[in-house]
């Protein structure tokens, strides 16, 4: 490995390793508090470190801004990321691809299954209000969204998917007590395998903050989306998978 792939943070000189952090400690503002902040910075690998700002906040809290040098090296060659294996489309592009390829709206049925009443995930992806500044799938002209909401039973989800001729089914699971999210998702995928002839079932997508994105086979779904997934990513994935599947005319 060449030396060129090892880097350090850059303040104003190559290799100076300068970083800034800010944090709050639950203690009254005092010289001791400043010392405590310095100690934390040192333990984080900032050496030397400077507490450039400290300010009391409320009762018994102090806010700090610390600048300092880290000695860590970043080996760029050893960075591993899960790359997105589909192109990210804007809503406009996604609509255009659906219109051209499917020639009908893409039907998406979404729900929180089991006893989970947390629609925050499914709403973030489906509701027009969306998430992280991106609009949800309802905003897409060529996507027909059927949001069944919370506490939907697996049989009624399957029913809805069949009646609405869903191209994709989105299931959100936030509650993870006793692995409920895994059990529910397996139950859901099994029900779809039973209800549809092989190769004809809709795309099954599970989402939630505690899923492991690599567990698709184990859970019997086509894709898992974890924390921080945006509506555009989901839309792009759905467009990628559903339009690629259609036989070329």
């Amino acid at each position: 490995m060449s030396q060129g792939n090892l880097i350090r943070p850059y303040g104003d000189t190559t290799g100076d390793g300068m970083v800034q952090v800010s944090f709050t400690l639950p203690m009254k503002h005092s010289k001791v508090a400043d010392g405590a902040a310095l100690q934390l910075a040192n333990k984080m690998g900032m050496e030397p470190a400077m507490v450039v700002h400290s300010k009391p906040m409320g009762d018994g809290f102090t806010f700090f801004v610390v600048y300092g040098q880290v000695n860590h090296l970043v080996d760029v060659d050893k960075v591993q990321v899960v790359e997105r294996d589909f192109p990210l489309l804007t809503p406009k592009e996604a609509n255009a691809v659906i219109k051209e390829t499917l020639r009908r709206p893409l039907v998406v049925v979404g729900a929180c299954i089991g006893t989970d009443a947390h629609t925050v995930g499914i709403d973030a992806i489906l509701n027009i209000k969306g998430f992280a500044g991106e609009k949800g799938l309802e905003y897409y002209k060529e996507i027909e969204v059927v949001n069944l909401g919370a506490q939907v039973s697996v049989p009624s989800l399957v029913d809805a998917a069949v009646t609405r001729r869903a191209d994709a089914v989105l299931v959100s699971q936030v509650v993870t007590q006793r692995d409920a999210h895994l059990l529910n998702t397996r139950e859901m995928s099994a029900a779809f395998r039973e209800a549809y002839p092989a190769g004809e079932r809709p795309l099954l997508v599970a989402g939630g903050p505690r899923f492991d994105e690599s567990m698709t086979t184990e859970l019997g779904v086509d894709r898992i989306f974890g924390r921080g997934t945006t509506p555009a990513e989901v839309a792009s994935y759905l467009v990628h998978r559903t339009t690629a599947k259609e036989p070329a005319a």
Partner: protein
Amino acid sequence: MRLDLDPRTIAQARALAAKVGDPIVEMAKKHTTVAVERATLRLAGLGGADPDGTPWVNHLVDAVRADVGLEHGIALPVWQALGAYETTGVRPSGELARPLAPNEGVTARSADNDLARLAEEAAAGQVTFRLPEGAEAELAAKHAREAVGVGIARLDASRVARERMISEIGDAPRKPWIYLIVATGDIYEDIPQAQAAAREGADIIAVIRSTGQSLLDYVPEGATREGFAGTYATQENFRLMRAALDETSRELGRYVRLTNYASGLCMPEIAALAGMERLDMMLNDSMYGILFRDINPVRTFVDQRLSRQIHARAGIIINTGEDNYLTTADAVEAAHTVTTSQLLNEYFAKEAGLENWQLGLGHAFEINPDVPDSFRLELAHALLAKSIFPDAPLKWMPPTRHMTGDIFKGYLLDGFFNLAGAMTGQGILLVGMMTEAVVTPWISDRDLALQNVRYVMDAAGRLGEDFHPAPDGFIANRAREVLGESIDLLGKIIDEPNGLLDAIADGTFGLMKRPADAGKGLEGVAEKSEAYYNPATTILEGEE
């Protein structure tokens, strides 16, 4: 800062809004909903829930509906059944009722107890309801009116208590009022955070609701300690938080206001609970639920009307949600939809009895900062709202759409937001967080945000006194342009065969298309029959 707008143009816009709103009000008057009927029972003192958490008001309304339908209202069948307790001494279940003195009226306490018992028995299928007629109906109506009157008296008492506290301990020292949000999910965690926020300078505390509560067709019960991205709105949570803020208000020598949300499927019920527990402001938009939660339009307008009548009576300031349109539509292109919606919200609010000081009409600082002259455009839009509604405490919402995670740029944007709010005389300033869209605010985020507000208010809070936009300058012209577009849009809405309902179905607001015959909660709507009676609307509309 004052804008030179032609008062005739503003009057024209108002007249058009009234023309758009009037058929909606007429439609709302012709319908009732399960939420309206449940709110009526809540005002009559029925609270609590079964061991599974289903409120008794839901049980009772469902039972009445199953026997006689919803279209007559629940008051007559319910108080007919309660009256049967008294006249026969035997409950519908066969159990002996408590002894009653001859001619004893239904007092609050006895109605309370009997209502709860009736709900329990109805839930167990032991009661068959029927619609009384003639003298029997008159008697049931009289008793219903007395019972609901107790709830209305509680609204009045809350209003008086608020006014008294404000005159005794003092009000927020200046405008805009500083509005901060807490939202931990746990009411017992929210309380110290709210008290800390008040000590740090908040004039208004809003407790954000748990995500998805707006789609629950019931109001959860009791103190709650778990929620998602927010805390459930319950009567007990309202009571706990108000009591804590009363304590802090006394300590600080200024009345700290409490806000919650009346949007969703339970608008009138939550409004009743808020009024009785002395909340001070409520989010209450005429179209938010329709557009952003896909709640049926008819359901929303019917629910909204009673909820606003209750707010009016309880002296609650409503906050409308126009800011939300700009989170989905472009803030420059859609500026006139905000103005249009403000005019409609004002019309519906006034019709429901709210006064100018109660209209926290919403708008937001959401123009893309990369657009040239974006700050001048923001000033134009904010000033337009202030000029059309000079006596309303406008609710000024911080940037969210262009908060990217670059907290440094976000902090600057929030500073400009504060400046625009100060210069244009906004009434309620929701404090923007630089960590918007990153994390729920940390203690340090809130502190930095308040420093930002204080700096701008201290440095430039009265800057508006020194400057007026040039009569033919960019700001004045832009304001006139937006008002003109708003008038055009109102005209177009009037031309639709079904007016506003068609406009909502077409995606005019927030780009959402919501047809009148779809959406959540439609099954909870019924057209009123000739026999319909509701003591709450009767009292609130002053028909006695």
